[in-house]
């Protein structure tokens, strides 16, 4: 059984075909990199997988279960988590509250209007643990507004990881990071256990190529090349549309 199976996925906005007949099969534990020039439909593909967009046709399966028509929020409960290319966090709150919201999202007590959230020890502990994991434990109670861009990227990852996803979708986790920060996030991603399947969009080829086992190249919404690292890098079409000469 595959972690993620996509068959014949199509999506167009008016006359613009953003996703054309995409097939994708990601095995459990795999590290998959999706590359492609700007406008290739990479983030749209993520939005289709997470359910933020509805496909025009085709199907999506998560761990063998058809989720094509499952609402986005249910997919989180089925074991799918994502990070955003444009950082999407709760800017008025502290770092730990951001992570707590991620934990709460999968807990039945998210409907509870009577208990005091600040006194729910297990949320606080687990959120703290997730922040230690990404190296932010020491500033857990800092307001998000007072954090650096690199720290926010790590909060994004902590929020996704704390939901214990089976499939993790990372949308440009290295975007906008300095070389040092990039190395930290890279270490962090390498430490994610193998029972988590990772699909990543990334432009930073040095870190991304090292991380990925299989690579899919998208161009104008179509899968052009797919294979392992060496195959895709050596493929003349990759050089033509993406890597350049």
């Amino acid at each position, binding site marked *: 059984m595959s972690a993620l199976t996509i068959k014949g996925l199509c999506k167009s906005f008016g006359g613009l075909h953003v996703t054309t007949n995409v097939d994708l099969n990601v095995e459990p534990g795999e590290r998959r990199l999706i590359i492609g020039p700007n406008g290739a439909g990479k983030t749209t593909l993520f939005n289709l997988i*997470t359910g933020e967009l509805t496909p025009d046709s085709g199907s999506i399966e998560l761990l063998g279960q058809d989720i094509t028509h499952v609402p986005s929020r249910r997919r*989180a409960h089925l074991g799918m*988590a994502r990070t955003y290319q444009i950082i999407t966090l709760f800017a008025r709150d502290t770092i730990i509250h951001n992570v707590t919201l991620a934990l709460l*999202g*999968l807990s039945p007590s998210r409907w509870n209007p009577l*208990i005091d959230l600040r006194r729910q020890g297990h949320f606080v502990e687990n959120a703290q643990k997730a922040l230690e994991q990404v190296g932010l434990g020491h500033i857990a109670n800092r307001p998000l507004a007072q954090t650096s861009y690199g720290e926010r990227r790590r909060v994004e990852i902590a929020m996704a990881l704390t939901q214990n996803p089976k499939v993790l979708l990372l949308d440009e986790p290295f975007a906008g990071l300095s070389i040092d920060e990039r190395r930290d996030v890279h270490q962090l991603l390498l430490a994610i256990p193998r029972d988590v399947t990772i699909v990543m969009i990334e432009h930073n080829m040095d870190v991304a190529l090292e991380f990925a086992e299989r690579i899919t190249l998208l161009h104008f919404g179509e899968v052009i090349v797919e294979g392992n690292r060496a195959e895709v890098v050596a493929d003349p079409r990759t050089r033509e549309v993406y890597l350049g000469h």
Partner: protein
Amino acid sequence: MSGRYFALGIAIVALATLPNWMTGVYYINVASQILFYAVFALGLNVLVGYAGLVSLGHAGLFGVTAYATGYMLQLGYGHPIAILVALIVSLFAMAIYAALSLRSTGIGFIMITLALGEILWGLAYRWISLTGGDNGLSLQTRPEPFGYSLSDANAFYYATLVVFFLSLGAITIFVHSPLGAALKGTRDQPRRMNALGYHVWAIRFIACLFSGLLTAVSAILFVYYTQFISPQTLALTSSAEVLLMVISGGAGTLLGPIFGAGLVVVVKTVVSGFIERWNFLLGAIFVAIVILMPEGLVPGSVRLWRLAWRKRERAAKVVSGGAEAKP
């Protein structure tokens, strides 16, 4: 922190003993008005402040409750039944309101609530067999909970105070609960909340019902206070007035709407006795608030206070530093 509890204690004592030190029935009635308008503003604040959904139709809901109470009493039912039916009718009306207006957010939400409020206002005017049209409905008596008659101003004040504290307690618990945190999350990042597994629509719907409940509670106090309800109560200006209470006091804070209600009611009832153009004054105050503290009176004052405090501390440091440098 202890300073905050101290201030809260003083406020509670002051409110509980108000009829003893406030002379004149008139001012006690003004205090009652502030309290039930504060409950109304707290209710609207659930949507405006915590859900990020601005409603311009809450006066319509307020009116539904008031008319339902008046109509049930006119049919000859007792106060408990009238109040219960009014609450149920209001929640039902709010559910319809929410189902229609939650199809959008932002400007769309404002416009739909505005339209619904106007429809209810029109109904109150035209459905004469039910509402009495322009003449409105009069209530003959106030209720007598546990044998205490509320016909006297002091007794009514205390009843309002109890309801006010219960409402404030309820909203305080809600805001600090997981559901309250989720609601604030849907205000700031609805897309992310959805991806994290939250049912954004359902959370907003529940917030609407809670807001509607507080609105209904305040409307019942209002209708028993004035013992009269007419279409004017449902007008757009009433909706705007409550919204101004919330925004001027500080949307998304617990105390803001209370201070906002105090400000509006005092200018409208007390100051209007001295200044004929009190609307002009109210407008000027709002402009001043928007310019000086756009976040509202309560958070704005806290900010200015902290600023002044820091300045003083810095000045003290400079003085002591200068003294050290001298020898």
